[in-house]
């Protein structure tokens, strides 16, 4: 079974698709359980699944509340593949995904590299307060910023990972800080919101996102979005299923598979659009 945090988000939907496709290719039955971003729903989902004699649990935890679920599954002798959300060593057979703290660090390193030491003022749109991915990415960013004194963060506000909600927030920030050179967004949804805000205020500004969702890629291709980070959700899903096959076959798998990310700009966007 694959318990995913939410398929309403394209990122996780793609991951689920990867799981589905690979399972079909390998001849596995897979149940996809959508927790709709609610940990209680995920707990219920997995508990329900565990009553059905599943062989492997692939889980993309909504948050750390998924840890006891993994333990429970392991306790029943069911291997657990943690996708994208790390459930801490010992609670999972293998982890496949990216690391949000690292992602935050990489974002700043990348942005600094585009500046070449030139000073730059930026705004940051963070995700839903308390959402682990957002808090981790912020951690990575905050840890890396001191290395680049030329980057000045004017303000950091939450856009709730949501396009419609980040739009007014971005407008307000742009109004207050017209001098900003870039808005760094912790996901593509907010990048699209920021993009709409900039266009409503007739401003051209560098906007970066994360996730490389199809419409973000389209915006990058049209030169509207400065950059988005391509995480490989589809591959995360596929490798998860491959690892599951290996484990069932009694083979050893890598315990921590950190996937590479790509910085997608107008130059290389072609490779990422299907």
């Amino acid at each position, binding site marked *: 079974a694959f318990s995913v945090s939410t398929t*309403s988000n394209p990122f996780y*939907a793609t991951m689920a698709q990867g799981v589905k496709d690979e399972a079909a290719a390998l001849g596995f039955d897979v149940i996809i359980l959508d927790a709709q971003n609610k940990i209680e729903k995920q707990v219920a989902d997995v508990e329900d699944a565990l009553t059905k004699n599943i062989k492997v649990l692939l889980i993309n935890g909504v948050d750390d509340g998924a840890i006891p679920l993994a333990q429970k599954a392991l306790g029943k002798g069911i291997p657990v593949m943690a996708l994208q959300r790390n459930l801490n060593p010992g609670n999972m057979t293998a982890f496949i995904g990216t690391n949000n703290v690292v992602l935050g660090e990489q974002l700043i390193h990348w942005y600094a590299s585009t500046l070449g030491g030139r000073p730059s003022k930026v705004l940051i749109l963070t995700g839903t307060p308390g959402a682990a991915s957002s808090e981790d990415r912020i951690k990575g960013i905050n840890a890396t910023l001191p290395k680049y004194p030329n980057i000045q963060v004017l303000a950091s506000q939450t856009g709730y990972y949501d396009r*419609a909600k980040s739009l007014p927030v971005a407008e307000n920030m742009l109004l207050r800080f017209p001098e900003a050179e870039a808005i760094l967004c912790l996901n593509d949804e907010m990048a699209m919101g920021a993009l*709409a805000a900039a266009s409503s205020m007739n401003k051209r500004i560098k906007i970066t996102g994360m996730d490389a*969702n199809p419409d973000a890629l389209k915006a990058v291709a049209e030169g*509207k979005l400065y950059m988005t980070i391509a995480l490989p959700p589809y591959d995360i899903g596929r490798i998860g299923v491959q690892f599951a096959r290996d484990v069932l076959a009694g083979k050893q798998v890598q315990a921590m598979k950190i996937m590479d990310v790509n910085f997608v700009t107008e130059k290389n966007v072609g490779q990422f659009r299907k």
Partner: protein
Amino acid sequence: MKMLSRSGLSMFMSRYGSFGVLFVISLAMSLANKSFLTLPNLVNVARQVSINTIISAGMTFIIITAGIDLSVGSLVALSSCVAMIIIEATGSSLLGICTGILIGGAAGAFNGAFVAWAGIPPFIVTLAGLTIYRGIALIITGGTPIIRFEGGFRALGQGALLGIPVPVIIMLIVVLFMHFLLTRTAFGTHVYSVGGNEEASRLSGIKVGKVKFQVYVMGGMLTALAGMVLMGRLSSAQPNTGEGFELDAIATVILGGTSLMGGRGTIWGTLVGAFIIGILNNGFNLMAVDAHFQLVAKGIIILLAVLLDRYLKRKQA
């Protein structure tokens, strides 16, 4: 006459009392932040509150009949996704927008029919609507947003007329129209009557079911209109947008002095309520308040605002 003037004043305050609150909040914001009281920012705030106000105008009617509509957020998503699919298919923004609004009307009719004639509590009907419309939006889009950087539909969100943004113009027209409907027409009177005392309205020969049905249809259409504006503003339609819009809209309506128990409320109040919420959000962004702390502060300020409102009304009455 002493009698008349006193009751006149108290009516004024109960209608316009929340203006005092709005004033105080605006004052505080402009003291705390220089950029607040600038024309571009005020236009900005007006544009930002437009979507919520359009939805809340319809919600006001629904709440006055002692109903509620929890499905507005999902309906924003559904109507804009349908509209965008049609625009993508036909290239005609007009066709897309009209279909979008019709979808809104249809969803409203669905809600309304169950509320009015099956006698199911509005909370349950529209909660079911919330999940159904969201599900349909996700199914028809396959869960992915549709983005489109060209087309006339964008004018709805991004255009301007004589310097006034189109969303603001739409909002003003909606507010004026709905105010007129509520205060100057037989329908408006019936809306108040049904919410005030359903049984007495029925016994007075009012078709209670029809009135309820109509307010939901209207609410659905306005919600869809808001969806069109949002689609224009974002140049995209997204199946999971609009989450939490229902709480925003209901809070707006109640902040504006409309009672959840029905029978009372005004569109002006709702407009003021929308601005109170909009200015709070705007101010906090301008001051770049920390996200966690912002939540606490916003809650407290809303409570204080309502307390102030009570105080002003009591003082004057």
